[in-house]
Structures are given as C-alpha cells and as structure tokens.
C-alpha cells in the first residue's frame, strides 16, 4: 500500500484463439487491476459464448502502433507490387489455410 493508489484500472487488449482458429485474434479491450485479473476478465467478457480455447492479454500502453500520418509511406508502396502475391501458381487442394 506504499504505491500511489490509482483510481482507474489500466486498459488491456484481448486476443482470443477460437476452437478452429490458428491464431490469436484481437477481440477487444477491458480494464483490470493486473495481468492475472485481465485474463480472468477476458474469460468472463469475451469467451462466454464458447468462442475461445486460449487467451492473451497485453496492456494497451505496451503496444507500439503505426501512426495514421505514416499511412502512405508505410503502406502505399506495396499497393502495386502484384508479383508479391502468391497468385501465379495453383495451390494444391491438400494445402490448408491459404
């Protein structure tokens, strides 16, 4: 109790892996006092309809994001590089998740 008591809980971002999913996917955010509570809150808020089998949480302020101002220099150059797409050969039927 020596630390300053904060009035608001920090914000966490929640990632859930669905039963059929391969990746953890961002599903939303929530408030929690600490990391463990965030996992439990995520369980209660985001997996109550049988959606998930695994949860990741991370404090929102730990995420470094690209800025909307940088949109053109970051992303526009890839807009015309059609040769980077794997569309020049047929994918065999038995290759999943493409």
């Amino acid at each position, binding site marked *: 109790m020596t630390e300053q008591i904060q009035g608001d809980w920090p914000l966490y971002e929640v990632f859930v892996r669905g039963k059929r999913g391969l990746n953890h996917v961002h*599903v939303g955010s929530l408030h929690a006092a600490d990391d463990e509570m965030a996992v*439990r809150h995520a369980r*209660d808020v985001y997996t109550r309809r*049988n959606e998930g089998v695994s949860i990741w949480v991370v404090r929102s302020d730990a995420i470094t994001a690209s800025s909307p101002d940088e949109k053109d220099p970051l992303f526009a150059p890839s807009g015309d590089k059609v040769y980077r797409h794997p569309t020049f050969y047929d994918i065999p039927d038995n290759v999943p998740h493409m």
Partner: protein
Amino acid sequence: MDMNHTPDPSHLPDDDSVYEGLLVGDDSQWAFGTDFEDPLAGVDTTVPDGVDTHQLAVYCLMLADDALVMSHRLSEWCSNAPDLEEDIALANIALDLLGQARLLLARAAAADPSVVPALPDGSPVPPEDALAFFRDDREFRNVRLVEADNGDFAMTIARLLLFSTWRLALFQRLAASRDHVLSAVAVKGVKEMTYHRDYAGRWFLTLARGTDESRRRLVAGLEAIWPLHGELFTTHAAELVTAESGVGVDPATVADEVDVRLEQVFSMSGVDRPDVAPLAGVRGKTGRCGLHTEALSRLLAEMQVVARAHPTGSW
C-alpha cells in the same frame, strides 16, 4: 488464375475472426455458438435400486434451491457491480448456478412428481419452473447463507467464497453418486465452481490486501455472513438417507476439507476467522427444513411475481 483477384470474403479462413467459427455446425436452436454439450446426453435417468424416490427428490431440491437462490442474489448485481467486467463475471456465475438449479429441479420432479406444485389444467409451465416459481418460502430447502441480502461487493465476495468452497467440495464427492443424473450434474458443476472459488478467492485476497477501506469492508462482510456458515455442515435427514443409499453426500463429511481451504485463503489474506455465534434456527430448524429468514420471502416475491400472475402463461 486472375492475377489481380481479391479474396472472396466467404472463403476467408476461420481464424480471421474467432466468432466466424460460431456460424458453422448445427446451431439452429442457438442464437450464438455451436458445439454446446448437453450435460445429460446419454445419461441413464432411471433412479437406482434401493433409493427412496421422495428423499431423492427432497435432496435434489436442497441442492437446486441453494443454486437458484444464490443465482438470484448474484443476478441482482447486474448493472450495479463496481465495474462492467465484474458485472459480467457475476452474471456468468449466476448463470452457471441457474443451469445447475434447472437440472436439479427437473431431477427432483422426475424422481417424485408429488413435490411439484399443482397448476391449472392446461398450464404449459414445465415442472422445473413450477418448482422455482410456485413454491412458498417454507417449501424452499436452501441453506440460509444464500438468501441473505447481498450487502456490498466485499460481502458478496465473502459469501461467494464460503458458498463455492463448500459446494465444490460437495460436488466433488457427488460426482461418484449412484444416481447417474446427480453424478453428471456434479461433474459439470465441479468445473464451474472451481472457477467460482478461484474468482472469489482472488477477490477476497485483493480486497483484504488492498486499501484500508476495502479491507474494512471485507472483514465486516465476512463477519456479517459468518453466523450462517455453520449451517452448511449440519446434516438433514434427507441428506443422511441419500448419502447412506449412495446417491447423496452428507455435508458434515466435507467440513474438514472446506475448513482447510478457507484457512488457506484467510491466512494469505491476513484475515482472522470471525468469532461470532451461529444464527439460531426456529426450535433447531433452519433452511434445509424450510425455515428461513425474512430475506427469502422478499427475494421470492420479486422472483416469482410475474410467473404467478400468469400460471398458464407461455414463455
């Protein structure tokens, strides 16, 4: 292949959204989700040999009413909890308990239909609803711990810790019941209440070791609810008879285990076991006998008023 093709959204892999998978499978009866499990699928519903069906029904009512009344109290936190996240957490726990109550009320009605209140001819109300909404307080068999008013969040947490620790220990033993339905309900409930106890235990510790104010409220809440704690381990005749025939659990047999569990939480939290006397019954009779506090009457009035106004209503 078209060099400039864009993916057809209908062929995106499932993991683009965790909710995508919910639209797959036979989910015609559900608004959301699939792969739901019927906890009684394939379960033999005949009453085992040598079991008194009336005593089994009474025992099922006891376990059902504990869950039903506790569920109602927890549901009173909807939109009132300290935080949106806690609001949903408490509602989830309430719904778990309501699910247990439904299965147990249905089992009581199946074991001995005479326990179900009579309704007007042609009433579509199923037996489980008739038991929940058309019995008076004297016919409810829940322990008095669950009917007390919620108090503040800390008191609710203290009660939930006592309740879930006790009920989890009961259900762990009930999983071995000779009655296959009770066993299936217990197996389902153990998973649910393991989480409830974890939730309550974490909050108990957090509040006890939090601020002076949170600790003061927690200690006060625990003291307020403690007089109803001893009743959890008092054996009623129906519990004894069903335990002897291998279908029920004598609550006295879980007292030591529950005590050890609670002591762990208390010592980690630096909270002393309250030194307050048990709440007396009426001539020794308490909740299991149908003798309750005034709080249950008010709770039932609110819970039952709509159903009772429409005994032939279809919901």
